[in-house]
């Protein structure tokens, strides 16, 4: 018997996620809100940890959907373990006609579409651009690109308008992050870059490290980057990965969940703030 998407999936899935403080505004359930009508692309990159990169992508997609944003994920992960569809396994529906496509459909939220491009997907697409299927309605949509090798992505001519880069706070990781930002800036001066410190080491003054880092970029490239805070890891993160259930669905206290929600809030604030600019 074929498994079909069911209307009722049990109380655990209902959870406080849908009863939370996210702005529902005056929209009906399922109606999508967007501050702009232009489709946008946001690339998420964590050179030090493809798993954390996919964790952020999966959770960010759900949080954005909770804020009534139409989201799709283009996943170019290099291994099955770090694929977004793996990390969202407990809430995922597969497209019966196309195993490369999957969906997350939760009550009252816009559908999240996941396209598994695979490790060579980006290059295949470049060779055969007609195969890249447009979204059924790109108006106001946000495409999250889970790109394992950011520099290749940009060099291959697929830059995004906006980036979240996760980096550790040691010198080498920061240098690699700076290299990525330099390339992003060279390919699009209007691009936006948001930096997240992944698991800032205890005792490190993350704000000071960011000030030095951002100061050097500003001085050298004349380019401003935003700081989206630190992503600390707790035991709930590990459990969410093993249970294939994104952490933002966890109904409890978690510093990692709070950090993920904060990243999404800052992203949305940033988006709205930009519209207010003269």
């Amino acid at each position, binding site marked *: 018997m074929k498994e079909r998407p069911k209307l009722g999936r049990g109380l655990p899935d209902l959870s406080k996620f849908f009863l939370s403080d996210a702005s529902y505004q005056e929209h009906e359930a399922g109606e999508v809100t967007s501050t702009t009508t232009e489709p946008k692309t946001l690339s998420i990159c964590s*050179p030090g940890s493809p798993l954390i990169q996919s964790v952020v992508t999966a959770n960010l997609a759900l949080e954005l959907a909770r804020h009534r944003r139409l989201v799709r994920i283009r996943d170019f992960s290099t291994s099955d373990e770090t694929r977004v569809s793996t990390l969202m396994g407990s809430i995922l529906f597969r497209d019966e006609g196309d195993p490369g496509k999957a969906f997350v459909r939760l009550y009252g939220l816009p559908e999240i579409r996941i396209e598994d491009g695979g490790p060579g997907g980006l290059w295949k697409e470049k060779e055969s651009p007609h195969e890249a299927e447009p979204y059924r309605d790109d108006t106001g949509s946000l495409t999250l690109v889970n790109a394992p*090798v950011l*520099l*290749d992505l940009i*060099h291959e001519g697929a830059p995004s308008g906006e980036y979240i880069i996760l980096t550790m706070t*040691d*010198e*080498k990781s*920061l*240098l*690699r992050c*700076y*290299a*990525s930002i*330099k*390339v992003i800036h*060279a390919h699009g001066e209007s691009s936006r870059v948001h930096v997240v410190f992944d698991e800032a080491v205890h*005792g*490190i*003054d993350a704000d000071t*490290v960011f000030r*030095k*880092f951002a*100061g*050097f970029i500003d001085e*050298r490239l004349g380019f401003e980057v935003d700081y989206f805070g630190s992503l600390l890891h707790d035991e709930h993160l590990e459990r969410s990965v093993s249970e294939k259930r994104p952490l933002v669905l966890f109904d409890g206290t978690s510093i990692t969940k709070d950090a993920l929600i904060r990243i999404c809030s800052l992203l949305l604030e940033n988006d709205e703030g930009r519209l207010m600019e003269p």
Partner: protein
Amino acid sequence: MRLLKHINITDPARVIRLCAQWIKEGLGLRIVEYRIGNTFTGSIDILATDSSNIYLVTINTDSLSDALLSALRGYGWFIENLDFLTRIYQPSEIDFSFPPVLMILSASFPPEITSILRHGLKAEVRLFRYLILGSEDDPDLYVEELGGTHIAVDAAPFDPAALKQELGIEKAGLTDEEIREFLIAMRA
């Protein structure tokens, strides 16, 4: 499973003995002398060596600020009395042409200690945090080196090409000078 309790040994000589044992067995250094120098112009808790360096060890058993001052005075004494030391020790015991390294062991350090020492000192410094667990009768010493000091980075020669390859950033077009300036800015 046994949970080891953190203990505070009040006898400084005992702490120094425990640390000396770790310096020999854990770090593999050869101890040349204990408590060298004098209380008026500076002293070193342990003088040790290996095949490439001389280590001037200070062990903090009370106040870190006192220990830091003691380490600096000990270093000053060592530099000023190098000729004398060269005369009294055989080259087979210790080679005074090796560069001196300040080594400080303490139960705790403030987070910014590496940055302070980096800017304040020309001498190479290695910092180790120790923890004594168990019981007064059967203490266990655990030691970890603090990471991220300039010493660790500077120990290897600066090779921008190798660094770019290691980080996979060859395509980013960073110049060697740019990498050097970046590292200086981040260490400031």
